């Protein structure tokens, strides 16, 4: 590592975002969250703390600027120079960090979109290193190498390379053993703004296993078709059915070990669906929702459902995309809203009564589409099928959800036995993989 000539004479530093990108697709809260975790990378290993403040008196001011912007390092448009930060000191500009607003700033922790933009978190960690007094390093594994190397992984799991950790520790000392990471959570810049949600603490191993629910009792909390597979959620577990209708396992998997970013103390998931416009996955718990990219929550979540245009205390019990019109429907007890995924808002004229779909009870567990193009409504031990865009339940329903979907023999059903559909093994036994 290489150190500059100057250091901060204090260890409790404040930061403030003075300007946001003009055209980035990243919402402001995501940017705040990413910068929070970029600072945390440095406070995790040193005695420094960082606090976001709503004032330009902050030690470190962050700007997204273009071209010449009143310092000695004008930006040069897309590519080339990406950002810079000033070393610590007494000058007003000391510590300030500038990002080129003409770059395409993205959040891409797993490098899923190489060449489509620059990962803001990776660059922010580098620049904040300068703001703390580190110069460029020639160690190829260092975050302080001057060249952009691409994303560095998930912000809340990121740990500084040894070279950089040693550098910042040399200046400011090691972190105090009694210090808790949450002590430096950002203060709200606006008292009316919702709090910045935190990622859950990373737990690579869980030593306690919550008791597994019985798949044959059905009563699922949420059901969703995600990437062509059906997920049945119950309490803190889920079963997964492949497109071939085989259950991956008769034993449920732990939701928190697969979906990374839900709160650890949740009791049940109320609804889940895969967004039609970007294939991201939305979870509803209580009056909050989380949006996942693959199995990882996006920064900035949870958000209140009021963000979607729903009344503040709405508990979405079912969410699905109606294949007939490609619209998303959000149900709560006996009412529903039609939601526009493109606009990110419910449409005017709602809520309406769920009796639009004839033959199903209210307060459904969830609704989802299967790969046969039909939509299935679940409640308790039963389910109802709707072919294509019909709003009238198909004949022969309700049927037993545990028999037809969980392959349970002799499970209670309120309708006469009917030939099972789908691909099961002999005598209705499932074929399990692994």
């Amino acid at each position: 590592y290489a150190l500059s000539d100057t250091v901060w004479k204090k260890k409790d530093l404040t930061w403030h975002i003075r300007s946001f990108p003009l055209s980035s697709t990243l919402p402001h809260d995501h940017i705040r969250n990413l910068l929070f975790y970029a600072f945390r990378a440095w406070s995790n290993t040193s005695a420094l703390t960082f606090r976001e403040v709503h004032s330009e008196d902050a030690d470190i001011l962050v700007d997204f600027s273009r071209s010449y912007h009143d310092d000695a390092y004008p930006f040069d448009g897309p590519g080339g120079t990406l950002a810079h930060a000033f070393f610590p000191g007494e000058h007003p500009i000391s510590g300030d960090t500038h990002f080129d607003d003409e770059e395409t700033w993205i959040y891409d922790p797993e490098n899923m979109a190489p060449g489509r933009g620059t990962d803001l978190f990776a660059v922010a960690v580098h620049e904040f290193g300068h703001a703390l007094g580190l110069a460029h390093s020639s160690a190829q594994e260092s975050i302080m190498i001057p060249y952009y190397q691409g994303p560095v992984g998930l912000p809340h799991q990121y740990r500084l390379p040894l070279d950089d950790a040693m550098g910042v520790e040399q200046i400011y000392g090691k972190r105090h053993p009694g210090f808790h990471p949450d002590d430096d959570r950002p203060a709200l810049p606006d008292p009316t703004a919702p709090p910045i949600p935190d990622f859950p603490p990373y737990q690579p191993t869980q030593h306690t296993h919550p008791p597994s629910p019985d798949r044959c009792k059905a009563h699922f909390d949420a059901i969703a078709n995600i990437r062509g597979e059906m997920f049945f959620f119950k309490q803190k577990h889920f079963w997964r059915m492949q497109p071939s209708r085989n259950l991956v396992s008769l034993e449920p998997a732990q939701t928190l070990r697969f979906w990374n970013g839900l709160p650890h103390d949740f009791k049940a998931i109320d609804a889940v669906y895969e967004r039609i416009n970007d294939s991201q996955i939305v979870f509803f718990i209580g009056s909050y929702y989380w949006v996942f990219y693959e199995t990882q929550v996006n920064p900035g979540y949870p958000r209140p459902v009021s963000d979607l245009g729903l009344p503040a205390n709405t508990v979405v019990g079912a969410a699905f995309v109606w294949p007939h019109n490609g619209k998303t429907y959000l149900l709560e007890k006996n009412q529903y809203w039609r939601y526009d995924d493109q606009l990110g808002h419910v449409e005017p004229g709602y809520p309406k009564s769920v009796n639009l779909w004839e033959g199903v009870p209210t307060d459904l567990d969830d609704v989802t589409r299967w790969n046969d193009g039909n939509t299935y409504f679940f409640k308790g031990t039963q389910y109802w099928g709707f072919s294509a865009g019909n709003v009238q339940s198909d004949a022969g329903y309700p049927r037993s959800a545990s028999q037809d979907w969980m392959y349970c023999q002799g499970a209670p059903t309120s309708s006469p036995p009917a030939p099972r559909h789908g691909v099961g093994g002999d005598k209705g036994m499932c074929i399990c993989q692994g």
Partner: protein
Amino acid sequence: VRSSNGHKISKGVEWLTRYGYLPQPDPMAARLQTQEELADAVRTMQRFAGLPMTGKLDSKTLEMMNQPRCSLPDIIGTSELMRRRRRRRR
């Protein structure tokens, strides 16, 4: 060929100066960059970037110079130090 080579060297010198590998031009003194100084600067840049230290503006080096990067210089204070040295010599 000569024109293309000249352009390459000119861009290289500009890059090396901007990021601290070569001293900023001194407005008070007319001075040419020697081939040896340029090769030294290129070698330092190559070592810093983890490239083979050829001392030449070869394709790998030019490619690295086109990589997106931080605006701050890699060698801080070089130009200031060199200016001081030159002043002492004078």
